[in-house]
């Protein structure tokens, strides 16, 4: 009898696990707002896009090699006004980066444009050749050479392009 009970428990545990697995969604970043082609970047698919490496210190004081997609490339893919289109009223646009814990920071759109700056801002999905640690990823903004890490947003879930009012 005890044997059957144990087997039954295993079946239920397996079912519960299967249900949990089917309800889990892959992490993603939604790129939306003032964009003609908004899209959702899903975690495994991000690895297929061209990557750039940025080296910067983290809170542990050590240099790390972050691999990721240049944010302006993602914005161009979403149809955001960059390059020759970033002028006039479009210079009043900003980018709000949102994290899963509700944290929000903004960048002026021009801070991300290659014609304005050589500083790389990437949406990283790797650190030192591995996926980002659980508490940081799967997506994290990495701002090259910025002294404080406060805008290196962890667990990014959204990038919204908005007009300042």
């Amino acid at each position: 009898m005890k044997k059957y009970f144990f087997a039954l428990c295993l079946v239920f545990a397996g079912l519960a696990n299967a249900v949990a697995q089917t309800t889990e969604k892959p992490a993603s970043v939604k790129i939306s707002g003032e964009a003609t082609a908004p899209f959702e970047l899903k975690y495994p698919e991000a690895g297929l896009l061209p990557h750039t490496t940025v080296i910067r210190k983290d809170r542990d004081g050590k240099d790390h090699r972050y691999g990721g997609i240049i944010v302006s490339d993602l914005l161009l893919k979403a149809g955001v006004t960059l390059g020759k289109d970033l002028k006039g009223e479009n210079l009043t646009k900003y980018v709000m980066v949102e994290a899963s814990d509700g944290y929000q920071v903004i960048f002026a759109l021009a801070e991300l444009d290659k014609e304005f700056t050589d500083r790389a801002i990437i949406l990283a999905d790797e650190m030192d050749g591995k996926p980002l640690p659980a508490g940081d990823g799967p997506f994290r903004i990495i701002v090259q050479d910025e002294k404080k890490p406060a805008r290196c947003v962890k667990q990014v879930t959204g990038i919204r392009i908005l007009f300042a009012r």
Partner: protein
Amino acid sequence: MRDRKKSNVRVVPAILCLAVCAAGFVDGTRPPAPYRLDYPPGFGNRINIPANNPTTQAGVLVGRWLFYEKALSVNNRVSCGSCHVQEKAFSDGLAFSTGVGGTPVARNSMSLANLLWSRRFFWDGRAAGLEQQAVFPLTDPHEMGQSLAISARKISMMPRYALLFKQAYGDVRVTGERIVKAIAQFERTLISANSPYDRYLDGRYRPTAEEQKGLLLFNAAPEPTRAIRGANCARCHGGVKTYMELFHNNGLDSLPGDAGIEKLTGLPGDRGRFKAPTLRNIALTAPYMHDGRFNTLDEVLDHYSEHVKQSPSLSPVFRDASNEPAGRNLALRPEEKKQVIAFLHMLTDSTFTTDPRFSDPRTIPRKPKAAK
């Protein structure tokens, strides 16, 4: 301890008439006067008022009556004010409130203070505005259990509301939408900004030595290599409002019984993640956490200091902060916990909890106590 015995409660229709006359215009032809929301400049102006529901004196008055209106519940025994009691900073002292069905609700009743600056409501942030938020407790079978349509019908049959609605909306028509909008307007006026901490920021209160040390610990992140001790509270409760609209798994359980935001997103990283609420009036809002598991602030400090449970979805802020080199927990000293708690008591705003503008209008309000 302040005497919390209620004064004699009497029905005072005369006060209602006076209030209505002061709030708006009986003929309903002119728009109601805007309600002046007073708050310190340091609170900032990132406030959340939808364009289709401006805060007006007449609207706030309707909302105040409705907030304490038991006819909004299916058994006429529960109002918003039943689970959000002013003396307790609009919480109710219970781990789980019971609604009309007598069964406990799923999560602890949250304190209502400074909602004007919130954009995501409930422990899991699922409501994007107070109007949307109010619909849930009104209609949920475990809370007030009545559809908005029935509520509107019941309210429309109560004579006192005709004039109030006309003042606020220009005609006497009662709708579910108008009910939730008025309640939201009233809730936006619940501003707590006159605690000893506010007066300290304004140069009008001198903290005790214990409070001062607690304030420093509250704001400091621990850096044992530089001999800086900290309680790291401001990482999630920072700023003058002690509220940053952040949502964390704060290590209550390694296997959370309540999945929190994960229920909404399906993302394992959101497992056990809940709102880090304001700490305004925190000494009045026990028990603590989304499930009311801690009865005292001492238990809360013990948790953060020594009992944070590791799990894959534990927020990073709890993973690496310690007052000991290579420490695995925050490791506050007993006297430091007392100092932090002393500072938390500085956030108690007695004028907020006795302000007659926030009380049940059916009662004669007591005069607010002078601030110490």
